[in-house]
């Protein structure tokens, strides 16, 4: 069985197309990352999959159930950390786990779960006194109480400091190693890259790219480029004497390479020009570059797009 199947999912709020015709599947044991800036529609999409929101159109199957209609049944089999997880302030993680076990009617060892999420030292601290990272780990602990095979993590590390984020990654990797299927949303590129087998980049309600990092770079990146430190004069010379699309900025001449041998022709032209030149290297787009290109800007700590390009 395929844990998650989504096709042409649509959710509009008035004129705002929060989720607009997206399709994807998540296979068993896979970590699938929904990456995008705030307002891209990640949370709306994931909440529809969790059965917390109703879809407008499209078809979704989660563990072969309709999440909205069969929500009560589905919730016994999935684990969820909602975005901005909070809990009863005067309750400790340990008490919270026991509470959830009682609600699910499950016998559980709270210490084992605390250990799994690296929270054994703060098991009896009241929720209000926990750090941001410990609170998120509490959320993760609660999502594991019913031993689900499918986990939904909605921005599990937003607002955490770098070391807390890394600790959280550690825990999530551990869960992946246990064979759990995980769908996570994030606006941190490194997080998506570090944890996911496959990534879908969302923007304005659409999936603009999907696949492994390499696949996305291959499809949407610029390919390999030759970069040479040199003057504008050299750039003009290369433009006149080669068939490449030569660009120049900040003392760096850049030209795309269709074939490896294009580099030899270019370097031969450089030698013929008798002009000064410096460092030579070949370069390809990182996922970062592709992401900036696809969402028309970089994304800051809080998930907002910072630099709109023209």
């Amino acid at each position, binding site marked *: 069985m395929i844990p998650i199947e989504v096709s042409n999912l649509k959710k509009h709020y008035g004129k705002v197309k929060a989720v607009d015709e997206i399709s994807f599947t998540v296979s068993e044991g896979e970590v699938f990352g929904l990456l995008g800036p705030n307002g891209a529609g990640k949370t709306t999409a994931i909440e529809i999959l969790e059965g*917390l929101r109703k879809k407008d159109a499209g078809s979704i199957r989660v563990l072969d159930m309709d999440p909205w209609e069969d*929500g009560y049944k589905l*919730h016994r089999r*999935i684990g969820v950390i*909602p975005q901005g997880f909070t*809990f*009863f*302030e*005067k309750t400790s993680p340990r008490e919270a786990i026991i509470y959830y076990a009682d*609600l699910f009617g499950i016998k559980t060892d709270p210490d084992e779960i605390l250990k799994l999420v690296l929270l054994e030292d703060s098991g009896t601290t009241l929720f209000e006194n926990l750090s941001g990272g410990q609170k998120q780990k509490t959320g993760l602990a609660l999502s594991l109480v019913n031993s689900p095979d499918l986990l939904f993590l909605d921005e599990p590390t937003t607002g955490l400091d770098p070391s807390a984020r890394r600790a959280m990654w550690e825990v999530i990797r551990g869960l992946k190693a246990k064979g759990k299927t995980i769908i996570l949303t994030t606006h941190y590129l490194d997080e998506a890259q570090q944890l996911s087998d496959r990534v879908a980049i969302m923007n304005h309600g659409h999936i603009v790219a999907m696949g492994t990092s390499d696949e996305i770079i291959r499809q949407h990146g610029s390919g390999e480029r030759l970069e040479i430190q040199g003057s504008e004069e050299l750039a003009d010379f290369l433009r006149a004497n080669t068939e490449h699309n030569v660009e120049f900025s900040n003392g760096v001449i850049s030209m795309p390479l269709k074939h490896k041998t294009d580099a030899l022709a270019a370097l031969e032209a450089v030698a013929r020009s008798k002009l000064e030149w410096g460092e030579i290297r070949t370069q390809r787009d990182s996922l970062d570059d592709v992401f900036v290109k696809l969402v028309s800007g970089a994304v800051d700590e809080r998930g907002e797009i910072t630099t709109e390009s023209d």
Partner: protein
Amino acid sequence: MSSGRRIIADFIVYSRGYIRNRYGLFFGLVFPVILILIFGAIFSGSSGAVTVYVQNQDTSSTGLATQFVSALNSSGTIKVKMVTLSENLSNYLADHSASDGIIIPANFSANYYAARHVVVIVYGDPASTSSSIVFGTVSGVANLYNLELFNGSTIIDPEKTTVNTQQTKYIDFLIPGLIGFSILVSPMFSLVNVSSEYKKTKLFKQLSLTPLTKMEWLTSKVLWYIVLSAASFLLMVAVGVLAYGAHITLTLWLLPFLILGPTLFAALGMLVGTVTKEPETAGVIGNIVTFPMMFLSGTFFPISIMPHYLQTIAHVLPLFYVIEGLNNVMVYGNITNALVDVAVIVVITVVVFAAAVKLFRWRED
């Protein structure tokens, strides 16, 4: 069965959180007791003199009876109020919820000057300390008169008569009123706050991902506020009786009010919290619903002292029926009237509870 287990689990988590939050306990348990002490002190122990209704049947011209009455009045321990001859004193006492009265007989001065035995009837409640004060005062004054002319042989003879009218004091009204107050305030404010906060912080969404149903959630809140109201009730009764000697009848007939009251106001708080969007708005609406009810339902004083139009308003407030019912059971012992109040409360509770459960959403569309 599993529903019961979930209600208990939720009850434990909620009550533990409530107890750990000292503000909640203060407002739930300590604050009403402080109100009893304050209002009780303001209205009870003012002058110390006991009001006594005196009927002077001696119309002779000697003035002796009038003298005797003014001697009683100047004792400082009792305050005399004259009752006209047309009244029947024991009925008059009943009508005024009073138990202390004195009858000076028609042959008072004639017998006194003739050194014939004359009986002064003193009405009183044997269980009440005020009645012993009255009897002691009358005996003292009578002794003076006996000494003056007859060397102390008993001519004027005070005689106790028991009066069955229970003397109702302000504190007797205050305790049911403040029990009503605590039945209203704790569940109402908490549920307005909790239901709007949980919506904002998405805790309801979080809970909707567990097998807990919203009905079970609300039930566990109602159970907790019944427990809290019962604890508050016992505390207030104990303080009222020990500090002010309140007359309170404790019967099983109080149970319907202690159970239905918190249910009604928890559901009402839930309803307010659930139909408003922001916690701030919910707080304002909650106050608009709560405060008039708090002051106009007979909480701090009997509504009979309010102008007529306010009494009419009081009759549409749910809390009025809770307090009236508590008064009927605890003060008047009038179970028939209390049952009418129970019936009214049941109807309001069913309507409010159903509306709260219907409008309350775990998830959004």
